[in-house]
């Protein structure tokens, strides 16, 4: 459980994180989405106490991260920026991290095995590929067997194999009942793993919603219909879960909750002529772009 309350971070006159309020709940994968520079990394750094908020608070399992007696048992974090000494071996890096908490050496061996680093564990971390570096970061995040795992842009720059590995890992972590908080600027990637979404742009909270609701609110999966008798078609199509929008006197309707196919069949059944019938699917990517474009425009106006 991560709770941010009016969380704010300013660098000089630039506001990186602007009064964020959100809660990350246990047991699901929560995506933290926003374009580059939206304040995602800064927010994550504040969650683990690397940066101090200018104002507001963020708590992990009811306390500030630094107040926990064993913080690595509360949150495991993979930051976007490299966080390993290039001259130290993967094993020694993990061992030193474990020792701060008195975590036994066999747990170090376990996380090395879990992340598939056995063959390179004794090599200097500086020689690691990007994918291996990510695995090492994730091994460190799992050391304390934390109930919350937080990953900042874990798939950035990875090859397809690495992306797939991360995706499976996230699913498995959530299946284990863990809180998983993953940031990304790629909506398509999030859509595959996240149930819940927190969307930010220019440091502001834009949406705190589910993947399903986000698509629906953006006008996803609607069918555009033009008909000679809109009033009768409305009656025919009406039913639970069906939403019909159309201006009075217009022949055009926007229907959601029904497929183009079933609208066509029903119209034919009742002898209603249709001039146009087209499904309009808004992808998650579009929904996300709409949200963040608004934020950018809004910001442009306020600073102008």
């Amino acid at each position, binding site marked *: 459980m991560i709770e941010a309350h009016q969380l704010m971070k300013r660098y000089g006159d630039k506001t990186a994180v602007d009064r964020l309020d959100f809660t990350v709940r246990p047991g699901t994968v929560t995506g933290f989405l926003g374009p580059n520079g939206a304040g995602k990394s800064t927010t994550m750094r504040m969650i683990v106490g690397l940066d101090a908020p200018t104002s507001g608070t963020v708590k992990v399992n009811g306390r500030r991260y630094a107040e926990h007696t064993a913080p690595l*048992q509360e949150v495991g974090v993979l930051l976007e920026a*490299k966080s390993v*000494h290039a001259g130290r071996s993967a094993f*020694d890096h993990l061992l*030193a991290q474990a020792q*701060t908490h008195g975590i036994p050496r066999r747990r170090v061996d376990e996380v090395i095995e879990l992340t598939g680093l056995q063959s390179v564990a004794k090599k200097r971390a500086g020689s690691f590929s990007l994918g291996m570096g990510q695995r090492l970061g994730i091994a460190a995040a799992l050391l304390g*067997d934390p109930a919350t795992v937080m990953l900042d842009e874990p798939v950035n720059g990875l090859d397809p194999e690495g992306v797939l590995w991360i995706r499976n890992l996230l699913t498995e972590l959530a299946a*284990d009942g863990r809180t998983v908080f993953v940031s990304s600027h790629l909506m398509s990637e999030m859509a595959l793993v996240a149930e819940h979404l927190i969307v930010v742009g220019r440091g502001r909270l834009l949406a705190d919603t589910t993947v399903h609701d986000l698509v629906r609110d953006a006008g996803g999966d609607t069918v555009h219909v033009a008909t000679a008798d809109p009033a009768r078609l409305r009656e025919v199509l009406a039913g639970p879960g069906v939403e019909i929008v159309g201006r009075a006197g217009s022949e055009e309707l926007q229907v959601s909750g029904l497929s183009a196919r079933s609208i066509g069949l029903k119209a034919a059944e009742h002898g209603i002529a249709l001039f146009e019938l087209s499904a309009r699917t808004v992808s998650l990517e579009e929904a996300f772009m709409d949200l963040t474009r608004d934020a950018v425009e809004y910001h442009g106006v306020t600073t102008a």
Partner: protein
Amino acid sequence: MSILTTPAAPTRSARPVYRVTGRHVLRSEWTKLWSLRSTWITLVLGLVFLVAFGLISAARYQSNVSSGQPLDADFAHATALSLSLFGTNFAQLALGVLGVLVTAGEYSTGMIRSTLTGVPRRLPVLWSKSAVFGVVALLVGVAGAFVAFVFGSSIVSGTPAAMSLSDPGVVRSLLGTGLYLGLVGVIGVALGALLRSVAGGISVLVAALMLIPGLISLLPTSWQSDISPYLPSNAGQSMFALTHDATSLSPTAGMLVFVGWTVLLLGGAAYRLARSDA
């Protein structure tokens, strides 16, 4: 397949209880220090500087005396002790630089982010780094000083500079050398944490220990005698010098002043570590 060893139980009673403690952080810093190749290289270098330059200096004195020619001006007041400790100036650079690397190296590589997420209260990291590296530098310094003296004094035995371990002040002076080098190591650690830059830390270290004493001669003479003994390098040297005159502090006063400088820098480093974003 499960990613974790134990399924995340809703109740936390079954989980092992870990804790961040001072002892744990010390162990972690100990592991970190010895798991880098640069530590071994620099410590060996420091030891070699200390011993080799002492022996070379003793050998030069010995050949100067045995050649029967008048003594070089440099050697006029030489003792077995001052000759064998000639390498201290160079060893302090190696140990001070390694101290800077212990902290600033974490900033340059990004390791500091891992370190501070592991120990988010932060200050135990600085105390542990200072303690671990300070003690290591002290032991290297004491060992190097004794080895340099034992061999150096045997080279110059039978010359006017001859001395032995049993002579008054020799053991104190050798221990003082070790303590001085240990504190230089801690100063390096503090400078690295304060400046968060390897280049910056090393520059300030070299300036403080080697350049400033020279620049002091630009000041009016009356100021020089008031300021000079309290400079880090001069106060430090009083800790292990065998003879003290009106222009230098006593060993104890020198040690207190040098410890004062160390504490001042550590305090600054602690303030920055606790207060500013990593």
